[in-house]
């Protein structure tokens, strides 16, 4: 059973992601943020529910829709926003941007812009856990679209073959960009794909953070005990387009409205009030606290310097040689 504090914390984290993402959309509109930016709004319960079930030193791997995972892992909102602004104070020194957030101090090995590309990397982190017998595990987020990539299947095969401690969490939001999962996947019920690799597969409501958390607690225990990998399909919905440039013409308005009614944040707010875990006043205070964090992050990003021109060649390699190109 989760403590009241833990439930409050889940609410706080989901709301933080929601509000920061709204701020990101605003800043994108003002052209402070460039490139591809994929918002996480609507899916907050998955990142927050799953990551909160982990130890601080478990590994987390993400996709290009990585803002929610970064923040749920406890990443600094200031350095997050600065990264999106392309500033030197960004978590990746302005080298990665929205799709390539990483925070190694929090064992968050980041976003990748290649669908499915992070799957074997997550399994490799799990291999390191197994190699060292260090009682850690890796948790890998991916979307429904990734499950059609060849490397996705290679990763699951390796994971089961070597009995590695990795949890695959599919955020099935039903669309790979604009293509309905039913038009892209022969088996659109992703959790069933686990059986092809002899591992347990679960389907949960990804719009309910407590359901996500409860299942993840069980799966984490199972995997950490040395029982090999598992796959979770969390059904969820992104409210915005695939990226900031997507008007979302491929989805019916009625469908969007239906999913918005399942919003994980008001759902948990109601539960907190009903169970007298929090008061309306307290929730309003949380709102104000988070507003302040968002404001500070935007100010921090806007006032941070751009990376110096001399940084262009930094980090291509860890070890430099005289013949390497340099600024």
């Amino acid at each position, binding site marked *: 059973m989760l403590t009241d504090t833990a439930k409050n914390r889940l609410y706080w984290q989901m709301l933080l992601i929601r509000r920061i993402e709204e701020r990101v959309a605003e800043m994108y509109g003002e052209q402070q943020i460039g490139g591809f930016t994929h918002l996480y709004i609507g899916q907050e319960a998955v990142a927050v529910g799953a990551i909160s079930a982990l130890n601080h030193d478990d590994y987390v791997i993400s996709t290009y829709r990585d803002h929610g995972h970064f923040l749920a892992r406890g990443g600094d909102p200031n350095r997050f926003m600065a990264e999106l602004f392309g500033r030197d104070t960004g978590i990746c020194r302005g080298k990665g941007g929205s799709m390539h957030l*990483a925070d190694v101090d929090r064992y968050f090995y980041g976003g990748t812009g290649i669908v499915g590309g992070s799957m074997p990397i997550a399994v*490799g982190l799990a291999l390191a856990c197994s190699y060292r017998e260090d009682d850690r595990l890796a948790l890998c987020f991916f979307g429904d679209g990734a499950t059609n990539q060849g*490397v996705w299947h290679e990763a699951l095969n390796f994971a089961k073959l070597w009995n590695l401690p990795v949890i695959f969490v599919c955020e099935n939001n039903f669309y790979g960009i604009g293509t309905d999962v039913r038009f892209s996947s022969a088996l659109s019920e992703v959790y069933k794909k686990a059986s092809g690799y002899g591992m347990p597969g679960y389907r949960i409501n990804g719009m309910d953070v407590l359901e996500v958390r409860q299942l993840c607690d069980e799966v984490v225990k199972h995997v950490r005990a040395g029982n090999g990998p598992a796959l979770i399909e969390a059904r969820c919905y992104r409210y915005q387009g695939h990226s900031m440039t997507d008007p979302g013409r491929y989805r019916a308005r009625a469908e969007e409205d239906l999913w918005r009614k399942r919003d994980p944040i008001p759902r948990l707010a109601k539960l907190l009030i009903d169970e007298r875990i929090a008061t309306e006043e307290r929730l309003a205070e949380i709102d104000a606290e988070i507003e302040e964090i968002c404001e500070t992050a935007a100010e921090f990003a806007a006032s941070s310097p751009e990376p110096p021109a001399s940084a262009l060649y930094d980090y291509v390699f860890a070890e430099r*040689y005289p013949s390497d190109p340099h600024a």
Partner: protein
Amino acid sequence: MREIRYYEALIEAMAEEMRRDEDVFLMGEDIGLFGGTFRATEGLMAEFGSRRVRDTPIAEAGIIGLALGAAFAGLRPVPELMTINFAIVAMDQIINHVAKMGYMFGGQVKLPLTIRTASGGGTQKAAQHSHSIESWFVNAPGIRVVIPSTPYDAKGLLKTSIRSDDPVLFIEHEMLYSVKGPVPEEEYLIPLGQAEVKRAGSDVTIVCWSKMVIEALAAAEQLGREGIGAEVLDLRTLDPLDWEAVYDSVARTRRCVVAEEGWRTVGVGAEIAARIQEHLFHELEAPVQRVAAADVPLPYAKNLEQAALPHADDIFRAALKITT
């Protein structure tokens, strides 16, 4: 000094590094029980067991992705891709992930993995097993490319590669595995980025690497009989590339032939020729010559395969053209 074969030098390098560092482990197709398609991991499973010498499924992208994840966690994986043509299957992992993640994460991660692979034609393995595509990897920043020609270099450079905190593509050559050469019993390392003059000469520089060093040395013998002193410069590593050694040698000889086994068009030789003319245009007595493979998928028929591959004779003729 004792003489051992190229593949034995590789085995020694891996065994020494594995004894030295518990974080070093190997993974690849048929590297364990089978001992490696080119015998380059023979005996290692017997010494280190299946935890550290891991037979994998035939899944090249997966192999490299797993090695990358393990490297993130601080291990030093040495994955093997049976031939460099199979690296193409893993290209997304190698280029989009291995070579870029250090940079795009702003230096938060180190990537100490060494990808071993075999390249090269000459054994009638045809178009999908025997190409030399090192230029593809040299083109991409973020991954070192090491390509030794002798057992001595293979051992010293592999040890350095494994100890490097950067990703390395370590390219062996199928025709070199059984070549013997002097390798000392005592431990040594060879730094990356240092070319070596394999034969000194003052009339023309032959820039080369991997098996083309053997061809270049044969060509230099032939040129010597014509009274032409050819300097054979073995680059040994293509990234970092020892540009100073290239410029020093060519500034002295004022003539250069670049010999590579890869395709001519947009090959490594094209880059070397371009840089030489940028740096030494007024020193040059003749245009830089390129010897390379024909721009065709490698054919199976023995005579056609040999016609597609560059040989000592091609180097000899290219050098002769600019020295007489």
